[in-house]
């Protein structure tokens, strides 16, 4: 991994069109501004982690759990 040190207000350019600016630093929190073309996908890493967790849980779904749903439906 490339590691760079930046001061408040300084930025990093990635390719020709992406710019990341250090907007503010407060204690352990850093606020970043990102300037990128509209088609660039930008997500917090946690979003990917949450989706990965959901996928893993989904793959373990037991088809028999659904019998509770069917029996619930057949009650009426």
């Amino acid at each position: 991994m490339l590691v760079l040190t930046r001061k408040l207000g300084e930025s990093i350019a990635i390719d020709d069109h992406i710019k990341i600016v250090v907007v503010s630093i407060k204690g352990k929190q850093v606020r970043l501004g990102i300037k990128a073309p509209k088609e660039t996908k930008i997500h917090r890493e946690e979003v990917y982690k949450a989706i990965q967790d959901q996928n893993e849980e989904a793959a373990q779904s037991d088809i028999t759990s659904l019998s509770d749903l069917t029996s619930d439906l057949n009650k009426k």
Partner: protein
Amino acid sequence: MKFNTTRFGELEVDKKDILNFAEGLLGFEQLTKFFVVDPGDQTLILWLQSVDDPKVAFPILEPKIFKSDYSIKLLPSELQSLSLESLSDATIYAILTIPKNVTDMSANLKAPIIINNKTKNARQIVLQDSKLEVRFNMYIELKRSIVAFASDDSKRTKVSAPQVVSNTTSEISTEKVEAPATKPANNTKEL
């Protein structure tokens, strides 16, 4: 082609119904070939079954079934990655989690599965819309729509007229999509 599956036994699948996920799914990057299984039960839930791993199958559902106002917007590059001109040629599914307590079931609206119906190329696309939930609780809505579907069984397989999609935007509601579902060879099997 015959495939062995943990949940549905051996299934005969037409080669043209195999979906290609070039990048796999998040957490399952090594699995790139899937097919859709319709167990034909009352729940309307389909399963995205891995070709390579008999154990891996994701319960999936068209979001319109439990959320009629669900609409998504893809970036031009995302449409391009599936060689789609618009979403009218695509099928959209949400992956469900079905825990032991079935009333806690949820659907991932943030990262739906998008399938190009013609090429059978598919991707799980993480949408930029921050309002969409990764775990959207939908048990009550699903139950309600199953009851509505059950009262009119013809709805189940009916495909309505293709919808009009504006050329300037890739946004559509998921109102109509054709499901390339594969029925298990043994339909009478108790599930």
